């Protein structure tokens, strides 16, 4: 671990008249998977969207690699090397899989070896290469969304609940893929599914009611059932 790649310092975000984040402070170390856990409505998605500049922080600062990105435009934040996989995956259904991937590559040309690796990771990307993206299944769309995020080398990938609504079999495949991806990039993973999160993450923060209520080591949290119950009053049996 080589210090922090992303730091949120007392970030407050409002959506319309609703105050959603009340001071989120977060320190994501470089490398590996860092998990932001919390039940639905706790402010996880809002945190990611605020980092991406899709919603504006009312107060506080977001620092990426020593650079304050709080007021930057979404597109400029993306160009600093941050990829975002939203909860709804953000697939362009009317475009082909190839066109979806092409948009995400900086020059419209593909790095062949990189693409090959992605296609090995997610065979569906190769299989449906020239098909319109709307014809993919939910799981396949999720894979396309992740492929799109890693077609260029990125420093940080923000992923919002990739397991939502997916069958356990697909989730298991995804764990493998994420381990592979995390070798050369940092992943900030937002999750509600503790089993999935605990099998991937090294560091973890728990958010509730728009505030971080716990920071620490994933292994410690996984071992401490009382802490889990206190922090995450959610149905852990969801995907058993």
């Amino acid at each position: 671990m080589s210090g922090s790649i992303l730091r949120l310092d007392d970030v407050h975000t409002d959506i319309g008249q609703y105050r959603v984040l009340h001071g989120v402070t977060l320190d994501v170390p470089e490398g590996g998977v860092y998990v932001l856990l919390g039940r639905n409505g706790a402010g996880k998605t809002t945190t990611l969207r605020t980092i991406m500049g899709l919603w504006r922080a009312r107060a506080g600062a977001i620092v990426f690699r020593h650079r304050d990105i709080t007021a930057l435009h979404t597109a400029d934040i993306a160009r600093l090397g941050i990829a975002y996989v939203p909860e709804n995956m953000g697939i362009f259904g009317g475009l082909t899989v190839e066109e979806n991937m092409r948009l995400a590559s900086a020059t419209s040309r593909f790095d062949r070896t990189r693409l090959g690796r992605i296609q090995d990771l997610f065979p569906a990307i190769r299989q449906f290469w020239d098909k319109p993206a709307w014809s993919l299944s939910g799981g396949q769309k999720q894979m396309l969304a992740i492929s799109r995020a890693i077609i260029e080398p990125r420093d940080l990938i923000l992923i919002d609940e990739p397991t939502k609504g997916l069958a356990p079999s697909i989730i298991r495949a995804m764990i493998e893929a994420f381990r592979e991806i995390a070798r050369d990039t940092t992943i900030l993973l937002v999750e509600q599914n503790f089993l999935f999160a605990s099998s991937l993450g090294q560091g973890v923060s728990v958010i509730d009611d728009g505030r971080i209520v716990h920071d620490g080591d994933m292994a410690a949290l996984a071992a401490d059932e009382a802490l889990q119950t206190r922090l995450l009053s959610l149905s852990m049996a969801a995907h058993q």
Partner: protein
Amino acid sequence: MTAPSIETRDLTIRFGGHAAVNGVSCAFRPGELTVIVGPNGAGKTTWFNLVSGQLTPTEGRILKDGVDITRLSPSARAKAGIGRAFQLTNLFPRLSVLENVRLAVQARHGIGPRAFRPARAYRDIAALARAHLETTRLAALADLPAAALPHGDQRKLEVALLLAMEPDVFMFDEPTAGMSVDEAPVILDLIAGIKKDGRKTILLVEHKMDVVRALADRIVVLHNGELVADGAPDRVMALPIVREIYLGLPPEDEAA
């Protein structure tokens, strides 16, 4: 055995070449609570949309109490007794909580020839609406605009609308999605209460296995738009094919 209240025969819908629901035939009887499960993209919500009329099938038929309703509009199906709560909260945001429910009561009971009287004058309808708010524990919020409610209460209001429609067939699409642990039981108790009545048919799309175990009389498993299993919970969950696709034991072609 009672006659089925809702039935689909060879129900199919294709988007382009892709069959989202493919030849699904099944029937549901009053007093029965069926949970529909399946991995994401299995066609659960699409099947719901076909039954409640938001989508029109490419092939196949839908019958309500033996009458073909395949070509009816969503509003006509609502009038025929099919009620649906939506997965994503789907309310009238700028109308008050009470008005939201009153609309559903009014749709059910009609306003007859009195259309020109002020809405306040319909005490019977307002009283019914308030009763539904009591049941869903929203009465204190009756005058707030629906948009101002927290997420959990919006989900409850969604269910209150469904109750107010007084349907024969209740369709819930992940009713507790996004609710906190202390809120969800209110909804689950309500569903259990409807079931106790014994005359209603209840269809439930749900992911949470604890909910499935607690409520289901029967489980229908959809996979890739097709019905792959149907039966009593214990039996269905023990079927190899279900373990395979739903629990993902052999890692065969996941993506397809």
